[in-house]
């Protein structure tokens, strides 16, 4: 049988999907395929085009791949465009003069950005935003520009505006209509979006009709508007809508729409049944679809029709959710309420700048459309109501009103979705597909994403997909394994409770009763930590020694070269001149690199193992205690100077900080804990970025909880206000002990609280209202820890047995000759490998 000659014009996103679908169908053999690709690059992800400005390379965006296409047996010609179609002879001609016969022809030519025919629109530095080449051109012009204007305040225009601000330009958006995103939003939503975007520094000009672009005085262009106003700028980006690329269709007399677009039927055939059109160039039912998902559906329909003669395109939902300049915006279905008899519910919160609107049917039963600006969390739920015609709850407004905690969760349970409900529109994944993936062995969100591609497109459905996967797994009785490691079939919380309840005081006892094997670097320190939280025994007792990782074993922080750093406690950051001098003298004597930490202490680096005891002897003689910088434990309580000295101070923050640090020092927990106390709302101690933050008020202390800095900063939540000191301390006692009791291993307080079902509310219930009747017990446990505090370094210096380990070699007094320092900025630093090679006269013998 001779092969069908298939010619494809256009290798954009939809053209690629078309080829992919043929490959997926396993029918490549049937065809002899030639692809013409006008751009010099194979298909790439245009949806994420803007990522090109934030670090993604052209390779990162690529979808088509020359090697893959070759393996599929395709003949792909880049930088070559179909310039004419001869329908009588069934052949195409290209701009390079190639002539080629076809049996079937597919047009996937996409669209081009519409540039209004304003005089001056073709000046230099007037650009568009569609291809990677466009972006290169924009970047080049932006480099010598200060001001940029985007003409068009639609979805793509705002995305382009974001790109210009990222490129460092003063950015303006000029819109003809009276509001932004006129297609998707109503006046209220548009106004809220405008306000938010202006706050981010973009200047928005609506109802502006550009009449002429000519030379500017201070900038390259001057834009002259119909109302007589002018705006000078160096760069102009047109983003005034798209127009289908139907020039080939017109040239060969295929039917096209009045306002452009190649007319197709439900099988994606044009008026010539041997020619298909798919993607943005196609006009179906008088509609152009400017989104990738409907285009991909057309591609699949065209493929099934070519191969099996069946399949049909029945339109597509144009709901969208996106983040524009960090602002969540979503538009669903009939957002403008054009359905006869429809009614609206609107919620506006000017405080947090949120706008939400529901459009419902006359009988209040069905959701027809919605607009969300500033908070689009309900998008997934609302979309499902709309798409599946699910009956609304009795009070539909409960779907967009803020959840104040006392009423029931109003979101749509994933269980209520029908099997056919589409959960991911980018990749057309239904609830049934997700279930099939799980039946096929997927056990995690990651597996399901890999198998179905759900949530890998725009990401708008990620929350919904996660809920669905968890729900399905639960239904199947599959539990996510949260055992701490292979040696204990228990979670950290289980181990904590076993140790408490059974009074277990050693790892070997716990392992014998509840575990197996020898333990590992996960469970040993975790158990050591729990034992310390519960009983607070000296961490280097014989049975505890093998549980501590090197930092806890040597009570110092190991650095990359095997030396240690030392941080003595300086409660509240308050230190006498004498102690400061003592620190300096020790650092000088042992030639330690010295640095001030963020926690208001001093860190001394470069101590060899064998130097730790003599250094600590001198520090303790000068009145210092260990600082637990090495432990998963209370680190510091940072403070400002407070009302004692500060003109603005409201209360004695330094005094309280010292009291708190002395109270909780030595407390070991699932992760490190940091505190801060500020003397007034100016917040100089940055208390809101700490696990426990306290801020003085006129009437007492405000308590913030579960903040942190670091990799994923999070502000603390206000837990209680205007507390007297005794209540404050009681709350902190109970919160910390509840954290120690219920958190996962190495879980900071922020993640812990977010994972408590009910979050902050729940924690307040437990601590303030004592809803679990646990507080007396928690406070008593804290009291025991506080009363059993000891300075671990002081204890160690009194124990000859413990001191034996503080030498590098068991059989020699020499020290490790691999530790070498060089000088930089008048202090030591570890030598790099190349420096070491030069510095060490005798080559060291390193056996590895």
């Amino acid at each position: 049988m001779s092969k069908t000659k298939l010619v494809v014009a256009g290798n954009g996103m939809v053209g690629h999907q078309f080829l992919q679908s043929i490959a997926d169908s396993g029918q490549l053999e049937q065809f002899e395929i030639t692809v013409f690709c006008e751009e010099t690059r194979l298909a790439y992800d245009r949806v994420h085009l803007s990522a090109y400005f934030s670090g993604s390379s052209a390779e990162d965006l690529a979808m088509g791949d020359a090697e893959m296409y070759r393996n599929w047996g395709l003949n792909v010609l880049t930088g070559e465009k179909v310039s004419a179609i001869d329908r009588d002879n069934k052949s195409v001609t290209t701009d390079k003069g190639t002539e080629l016969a076809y049996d079937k022809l597919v047009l996937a030519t996409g669209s081009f950005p519409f540039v209004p025919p304003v005089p001056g629109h073709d000046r230099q530095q007037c650009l568009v935003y569609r291809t990677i080449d466009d972006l290169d051109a924009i970047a080049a012009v932006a480099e010598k520009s200060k001001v940029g204007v985007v003409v068009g305040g639609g979805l793509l225009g705002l995305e382009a505006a974001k790109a210009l601000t990222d490129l460092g330009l003063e950015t303006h958006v000029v819109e003809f209509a009276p509001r932004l995103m006129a297609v998707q939003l109503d006046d209220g939503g548009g106004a809220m979006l405008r306000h938010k975007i202006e706050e981010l520094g973009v200047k928005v000009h609506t109802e502006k009709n550009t009449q002429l672009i000519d030379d500017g005085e201070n900038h390259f262009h001057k834009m002259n508007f119909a109302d007589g106003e002018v705006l000078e700028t160096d760069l102009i980006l047109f983003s005034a809508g798209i127009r289908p690329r139907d020039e080939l269709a017109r040239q060969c007399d295929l039917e096209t729409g009045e306002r452009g677009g190649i007319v197709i039927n439900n099988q994606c055939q044009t008026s010539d049944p041997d020619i298909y059109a798919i993607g943005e160039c196609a006009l179906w039912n008088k509609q152009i679809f400017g989104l990738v998902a409907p285009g991909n559906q057309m591609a699949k329909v065209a493929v099934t029709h070519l191969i099996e003669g069946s399949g049909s395109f029945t339109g597509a939902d144009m709901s969208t959710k996106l983040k524009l300049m960090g602002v969540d915006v979503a538009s669903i279905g009939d957002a403008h309420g054009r359905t006869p008899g429809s009614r609206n519910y609107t919620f506006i919160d000017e405080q947090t700048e949120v706008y939400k609107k529901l459009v419902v049917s006359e009988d209040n039963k069905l959701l027809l459309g919605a607009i969300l600006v500033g908070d689009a969390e309900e998008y997934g739920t609302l979309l499902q109501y709309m798409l599946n015609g699910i009956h609304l709850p009795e009070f539909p407004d409960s779907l967009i009103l803020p959840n104040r905690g006392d009423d029931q969760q109003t979101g749509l349970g994933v269980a209520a979705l029908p099997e056919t409900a589409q959960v991911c529109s980018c990749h057309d994944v239904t609830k049934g597909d997700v279930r099939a993936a799980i039946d096929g062995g997927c056990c995690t969100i990651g597996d399901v994403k890999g198998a179905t591609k759900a949530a890998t497109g725009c990401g708008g459905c990620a929350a919904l997909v996660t809920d669905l996967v968890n729900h399905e797994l639960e239904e199947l009785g599959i539990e996510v394994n949260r055992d701490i490691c292979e040696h204990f079939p228990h979670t950290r919380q289980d181990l904590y409770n076993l140790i408490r309840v059974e009074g277990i005081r050693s790892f070997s006892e716990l392992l014998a009763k509840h575990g197996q094997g020898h333990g590992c670097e996960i469970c040993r320190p975790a158990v050591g930590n729990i034992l310390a939280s519960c009983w607070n025994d000296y961490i280097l007792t014989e049975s505890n020694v093998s549980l501590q990782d090197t930092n806890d074993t040597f009570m110092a922080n190991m650095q990359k070269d095997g030396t240690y750093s030392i941080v003595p406690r300086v409660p509240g950051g308050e230190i006498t001149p004498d102690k400061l001098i003592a620190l300096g003298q020790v650092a000088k004597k042992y030639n330690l690199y010295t640095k001030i930490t963020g926690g208001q202490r001093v860190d001394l680096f470069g101590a060899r193992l064998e130097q730790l005891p003599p250094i600590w002897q001198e520090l303790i003689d000068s009145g210092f205690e260990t600082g637990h910088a090495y432990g998963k434990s209370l680190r510091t309580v940072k403070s400002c100077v407070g009302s004692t000295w500060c003109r603005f101070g409201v209360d004695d923050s330094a005094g309280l900080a010292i009291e708190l640090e002395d109270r909780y020092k030595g407390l070991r927990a699932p992760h490190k804990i940091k505190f801060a106390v500020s003397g007034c709302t100016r917040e100089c101690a940055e208390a809101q970025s700490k696990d426990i933050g306290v801020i003085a008020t006129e009437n007492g202390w405000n308590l913030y909880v579960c903040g942190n800095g670091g990799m994923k900063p999070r502000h603390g939540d206000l837990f209680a206000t205007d507390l007297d000191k005794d209540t404050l301390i009681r709350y902190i006692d109970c919160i910390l002990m509840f954290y120690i009791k219920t958190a996962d291993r190495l879980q900071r307080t922020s993640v812990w609280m977010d994972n408590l079902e009910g979050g902050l509310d729940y924690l307040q219930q437990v601590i303030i209202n004592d809803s679990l009747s646990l507080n007396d017990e928690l406070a008593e446990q804290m009291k025991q820890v506080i009363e059993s505090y000891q300075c671990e370094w002081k204890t160690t210096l009194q124990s000859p047995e413990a001191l034996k380990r503080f030498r590098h070699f068991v059989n020699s007094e020499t020290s490790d000759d691999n530790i070498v320092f060089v000088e930089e900025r008048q202090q030591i630093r570890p030598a790099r490998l190349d420096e070491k090679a030069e510095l060490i006269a005798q080559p060291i013998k390193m056996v590895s």
Partner: protein
Amino acid sequence: MTSSTHWTTVCKQTDLVLDSGICALVNEIQVALFCLPSQDAVFAIANTDPFSQANVLSRGLVGSLGEDLVVASPVYKQHFCLRSGRCFEDESQSISSWPARIENGNVEILI
């Protein structure tokens, strides 16, 4: 290993720390020694961590990975087999190991 290996006394049995490590200097070579009482055994591997080039493996935590007895580097946490020196994360970074035993209260290794 050269052919002239012989059992060399390194330290006393009482110098060992149970379920943990210490370091000895043997013919200019740094050797990490681990004592696992449950196995009634001593293990000797190189002390240099190939990933950080620091001489610190004796300060790692010991434990088991499946059937294998291992130490985890205190620097970047890779696992090394106490018997063979094999690195579990990257075989090409495996390290030396030596047979070790206790004789008359002394720790000896074949080196």
